[in-house]
């Protein structure tokens, strides 16, 4: 059994730190698509970082919720990267981006229906079969809900995990954002998902939009999300936690300080 692990997303601003320094993390997470290229410096950096740290491949383009299935060319490229990197986890989102030839490049929300569940599970099965391993699926932030939904997000996730055997990447900030936007209790979400399937946690900052919270990843984790994280680690077993920062990237020391907060909260809950 692993102990809790703590990591950071690898961002361009910190390449040198990770390549030359001794950064105190247990893993780094990279956006898979940034490295699904033929060659050049991105692939070289990933190879060198991989020599120093375990790597998590986190995707944004698999489109697990597409009604017309996954793109074989995307899967083939991802499989090649997985083979090369031998990642700690491979993950993507419970959302859709593509229908037909159109690709929105956004994590669009799904209706939580029986039909959507069948489609998502088929797509996860296909991905796991191609990858030859279990993948993690992340709950997204969302800004609208569909009249067609016949179950809650956590009921959908539970059924998905049970049917496919996939692991869960629990984004605590996304739970908080969606709970605020849709008026549910985030603790109901935590109670409703199978915590023994949670392998990784994302923590991030969000912003206040026009009547909605927006998952911007451009600020520090706020107190409400830290509180929800503390409740999360109290409910799950050893898990890999990371800070996900995509905008207004601060110096690495600032992110490492945030990661120390996560370490302290997890240690406190473990001691309790």
């Amino acid at each position: 059994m692993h102990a809790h692990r703590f990591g950071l997303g690898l961002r361009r601003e910190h390449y040198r730190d990770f390549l030359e320094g001794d950064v105190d993390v247990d893993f780094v997470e990279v956006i898979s698509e940034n490295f699904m290229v033929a060659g050049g410096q991105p692939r070289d950096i990933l190879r060198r970082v991989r020599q120093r740290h375990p790597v998590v491949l986190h995707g944004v383009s698999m489109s697990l919720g597409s009604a017309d299935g996954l793109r074989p060319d995307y899967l083939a490229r991802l499989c090649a990267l997985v083979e090369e990197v031998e990642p700690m986890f491979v993950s993507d989102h419970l959302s859709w981006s593509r229908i037909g030839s159109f690709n929105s490049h956004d994590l669009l929300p799904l209706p939580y229906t029986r039909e959507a569940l069948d489609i998502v599970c088929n797509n996860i099965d296909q991905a796991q079969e191609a990858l030859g391993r279990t993948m993690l699926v992340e709950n997204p932030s969302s800004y609208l809900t569909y009249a067609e939904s016949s179950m809650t997000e956590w009921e959908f996730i539970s059924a998905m995990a049970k049917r496919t055997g996939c692991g869960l990447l629990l984004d605590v900030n996304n739970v908080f954002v969606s709970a605020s936007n849709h008026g549910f209790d985030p603790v109901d979400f935590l109670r409703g998902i199978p915590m023994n399937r949670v392998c990784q946690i994302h923590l991030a900052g969000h912003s206040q939009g026009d009547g909605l919270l927006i998952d911007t990843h451009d600020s520090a984790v706020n107190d409400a999300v830290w509180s929800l994280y503390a409740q999360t680690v109290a409910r799950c077993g050893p898990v890999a936690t990371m800070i996900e920062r995509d905008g207004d990237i601060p110096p690495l020391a600032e992110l490492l300080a945030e990661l120390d907060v996560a370490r302290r909260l997890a240690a406190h809950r473990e001691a309790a």
Partner: protein
Amino acid sequence: MNLADIQGGFHAMLATSAPAAGVPDGPGRAVYQNNYRTQLAGCLEESYPLLRAFIGEEAFLHAAVAHITRHPPQAWTIDAYADGFGATLQTVFPDNPDLHELAWIEHALGQAFIAADAAPVTADALAAIDWDQARLRLTPTLQLRAAGTNAAELYFALRDGASVETEMLPAPGGLLVWRRGFVSCLRALDAIEFAALAHLQREGSFVGLCTLLVERLGEEQGIASAGAVLADWLGSELITGVDNE
């Protein structure tokens, strides 16, 4: 509605910015519409920073909106959205070859940055070559196009914060982009070198290259020129293999 219908409606809503069946009204819809356009415009801005500086924010945004409206994204990677922008620029600004060529340069440099790796040939590998039978392999990072303006000079000036007047070249030439190590490189070519490199890219034969240069420059200067350009291309790491037929 089933999932395919909902996703089709969502697609229509994003592509047209108009309400669509199956997508609930409200502030959330505006968030997704804004994300969609902001991401695509951001990709273009990131891919063409010098073009944006050259033509100005308003003209760039005008072209970006035209591109987003006419060409919904299709590839799995958003980076590919920059690929077709050059064609849109030719439609929006048909009489500005300088900006077409500047856009090509920025796009080609980006493509070269992530193109497949291939080691340049070493001096040792050339020792036993029968040049009458030799076929040269060019780096997979190489991109070529004809040029009618001083866009390369413009690129370097914009990059370095200098100023330069754009102008048509006295005689058409070419633009060469490739990668040395991890650094994308740009070079302006005269008409002869452009023709020679394009020939080599197409045919591969060193003898064919010599024939072309002899036709253009005469026997003595053509042969001398073939040796000179080959030495330069080897030194610039443009040649990644030499095969004997």
